[in-house]
């Protein structure tokens, strides 16, 4: 069977990947040019090296039988967990977070690779313990696989990267066949938590909202009373369910627990989140609240993108980017420089390429005869999609600023390698989709 694999190569997926990576190198080069036309950065050279080695890795993982990898999944996962722990102690601070580990100039960001390791490990468990998936106890237990690296990354702190674990694991659970109400519980609790976290800040910056009602969230004692009260309702309905086994007690318990998690979580988040992170959420609604500070990135990025027009200003001819109005142009805001120089047409090209990759991924999920492969592919597709949606959404003003890279395009060896490995895995799943 392995002999056929070369002919069954997913050419569309591969070509789209290569084009995106090439575009990335081109615009990383563009972002390194100053207003006076000098090339001040060697990032494009480094990215080229990583791209070439990365494609090697891609081919390697594509031809590698993933069943072997599956057997090693727990060990790989644990190695990266260990690396994450090690990073917390020995890591180097890059962009305010301790996310980089290595010796001399060689090193990696374990958090990027850990996403892939987590996906494989979670897919393995979800396939093996298939029958227990609909059981609440195991449902919670499996979540731990995603939660452990996520917490370690949160400590770094790298909120953006940590957030990726949530949608990835939820979609994997969803596709693997978890109970809708469990999934709904997690999604609703998460959304409510975000809502409760930022609610008082919106009141503060945009007026409106009842001040005394807001004090339920801003006043520490009042918040604790509120959480306690919800917890009491929770406990009572739990007791009711235990003794009467009535269905309405179940739903009462379900929603009160949901509320409890959301409130407690938002309470914790408000005490953990930094001022600048809150401000990012506030300026997402209206960047002009703080145009020179937190709103700067959004305003400048939208100016650059909007001024690009239909066909763009031409490669290397962007103004906003070369005059350095856009921060982090080679990493988080690579999409802005592309949009400015290539316009709407260039953006559509990138969209189409991403869409092909994701649709090919969905096709692999749909056709794979192996549950493990399908679930792992789900994780990879979700990861790529989430990065795309958050990064592009942020550049065009539809998402709050979270510093996560745009896969394939953004400068950075670890993220490029991890995504190329992921594509390699997808191909491996594709090649072996009719396996015995």
């Amino acid at each position, binding site marked *: 069977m392995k002999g056929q694999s070369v002919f069954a190569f997913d050419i569309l997926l591969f070509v789209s990947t290569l084009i995106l990576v090439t575009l990335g190198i081109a615009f990383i080069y563009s972002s390194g040019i100053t207003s006076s036309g000098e090339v001040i950065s060697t990032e494009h050279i480094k990215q080229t090296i990583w791209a070439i080695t990365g494609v090697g890795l891609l081919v390697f993982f594509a031809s590698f039988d993933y069943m072997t990898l599956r057997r090693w999944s727990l060990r790989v996962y644990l190695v990266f967990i260990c690396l994450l722990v090690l990073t917390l102690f020995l890591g180097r601070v890059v962009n305010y977070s301790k996310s980089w580990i290595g010796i001399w100039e060689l090193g990696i960001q374990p958090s990027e690779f850990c996403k892939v390791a987590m996906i494989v490990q979670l897919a393995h468990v979800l396939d093996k313990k298939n029958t227990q998936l609909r*059981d609440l106890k195991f449902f919670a237990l499996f979540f731990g696989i995603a939660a452990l690296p996520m917490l370690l990354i949160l400590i770094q702190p790298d909120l953006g990267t940590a957030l990726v674990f949530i949608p990835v694991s939820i979609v994997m659970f969803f596709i693997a066949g978890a109970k809708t109400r469990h999934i709904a519980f997690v999604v609703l609790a998460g959304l409510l938590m975000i809502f409760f976290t930022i609610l008082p800040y919106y009141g503060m910056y945009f007026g409106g909202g009842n001040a005394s009602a807001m004090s339920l969230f801003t006043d520490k004692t009042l918040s604790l009373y509120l959480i306690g009260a919800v917890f009491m309702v929770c406990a009572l309905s739990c007791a009711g369910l235990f003794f009467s086994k009535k269905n309405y007690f179940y739903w009462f318990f379900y929603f009160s627990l949901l509320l409890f998690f959301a409130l407690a979580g938002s309470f914790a988040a408000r005490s953990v989140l930094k001022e600048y992170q809150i401000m990012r959420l506030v300026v997402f609604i209206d960047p002009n609240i703080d145009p020179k500070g937190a709103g700067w990135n959004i305003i400048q990025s939208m100016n650059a993108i*909007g001024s690009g*027009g239909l066909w763009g200003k031409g490669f290397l001819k962007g103004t906003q980017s070369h005059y350095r109005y856009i921060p982090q142009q080679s990493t988080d805001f690579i999409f802005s420089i592309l949009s400015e120089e290539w316009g709407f047409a260039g953006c559509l090209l990138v969209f189409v390429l991403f869409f092909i990759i994701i*649709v090919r991924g*969905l096709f692999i999920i*749909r056709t794979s005869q192996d549950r493990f492969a399908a679930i792992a592919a789900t994780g990879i597709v979700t990861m790529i999609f989430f990065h795309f949606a958050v990064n592009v959404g942020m550049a065009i003003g539809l998402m709050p600023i979270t510093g996560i890279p745009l896969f394939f395009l953004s400068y950075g060896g670890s993220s490029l390698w991890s995504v190329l490995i992921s594509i390699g895995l997808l191909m491996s799943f594709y090649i072996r989709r009719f396996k015995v």
Partner: protein
Amino acid sequence: MSTSGLTGSRDTPLSKIRIYAFGVVVAAVFFVYSVHLFNLQVVNEELYQSRATQVTQRSIPIYAQRGEIFDRSYDTPVVSNIDSFAVDIIPGEVPEERRTDVYRRLAGYLGISEEEMRRRLPPSYAGLYQPVEVKSGLSLETITYLAEHLEDFPGVTWRSKPIRNYVEKESLAHVLGYVGDITKEELQILYNQGYSNGSVLGKSGIEKQYDLILRGQDGKEFRTVDVRGRKVGEALVDEVPPVLGKNIVLTIDRNIQKLCEKALGSRIGTVLVTKPSTGEVLALVSYPSFDPNLFYTADTADAFRRLSLNTSFPFLNRAIQSQYVPASTYKIILTTAILEDEVVSPSKTVFCPGYYNYGDRVFRCHKHNGHGSLALFSGLAESCDVYYYTMGAEYLGIDRIVDFSRRFGLGELTGIDIPGEIPGTLPSPAWKTKTYNARWVGGDTVNMSIGQGYLGVTPIQMANAVSMIVNKGTVYKPHILKEIRDPQTGELLERIEPEILAAAAVRPSTFEAAGSAMRQVITNGTARVVITTKAVNSAGKTGTGEVGMEDHWHSWFVANAPYDAPPEEQIVLVVLVEAANDWEWWAPKAANIILHGIFSKMNYEEVRSTLSTWYLPLQALPQEVQEVR
């Protein structure tokens, strides 16, 4: 919770619906993003393009050259612009580690304190790539030194910034005024007239009055800059050229001005020479004065503070901004009232015993042993107080006195074209009730009849009063601007025409009689002994103002000359020497020098050497005007 229902086997197919649901979410996001991007880049492209341009463009003003100011001869300017330089620093180009050092060295070289340096370049400017002015008004030598030692001054640049050069210093300062950087308060008021932050504008005098004519219009240069304000590329995006300020020609005669300045000498006071037939001001001297160039020297703030605190108020333009009791010069107005209203025959005599009793008060004549009997003409010539006490209190009455004062323009602005004029004080019974809440008494009328008491006039008002007699009833608005001319071609753009300020309903014959009475003051009255010049026949009136100081009085002299010439050829002269000086009875003496100088076309030194007077020793060295510092 039960695990009943699906019992998963290894090959249980995944739920297709869930996969499709996920696919729908993906497709929806792609769709929404595409629509949003289309909206951003295609529909609103222009909006974002203009925002992007706005963000990257800075406009830099190109300052228009200020117009020059000439005296009436229109030969060499009395105010010009001279080449000068300003030193800027671009903080972003100063290496971090050398910053303190470079700032200190530059401050030391330019002679400004380190505090001032810190004020101009606060630490928050450290990364700025725009030039910040450190100092202006620097010479070429200063810049040459900087250029030769450029390695010691990284980030330092310079540019041409012409400064005002006041060629005729001191005595013209009150007329010309001076210029300075616009203040925040001024900008708030003037923003809509095209002034901007960094504009230079006239702060007083002609510079202020005609600022809009002199300043022209600043141009603009648009440049593209990067996020740190650094200029991008060499090409200018656009340019609006500046419009040069227009030149103006004053009515001032430089030679007469100089003559008046020297005739007054170092005495606190003022001299005015006007042309009654047009209202043109030929000379306006106010002492003490100041040097407007001082505001460009190293210690501008210091010079300004010193001048402001000077107790003789050098900034005060005494010709228009200070009021004095008119004293006996006021008798001209009473004389006109007596003649016009015929309240008494001009030949009616009054006996002057040297004092005048009114109620229980005794008013003295300046001649303590009395003038004996005199009529109107000799009363004015001898300036007999008792004659005018009698006329004012017994024949004219306060209402008529106030009425005639008003006809002569007292208590009202003359509208001269330099800012800051005051109207003086014209008292009346109603005024006294309002101001002091006291009743007007007969004694007040007696006092006012000889120009004492509450009365306050400005020298320019007295010049107008004499002009009215010369013109037989008409007064032209006094003005200093004569012409506006194109700065490049010299073409006449506008000539200021005489404007009638007041026309009094008084018979010409009355003014004729009043004028001949003033002539007698010179020929056989109080001024006979001092007006010795044979160059011209003049008419005039002396005045000695009581200000409550022992042996010190304001000394007034008002005159018109030549007496018998038509008004077009006449000039009006007003001299006031304040009581603060040693008593020399200097006003008529200065007038004698000035009249002689003007009509024999001599300068002060020539007058000193030819005019034989009892008070000016011929061989004495010319008196130097002391500078007020």
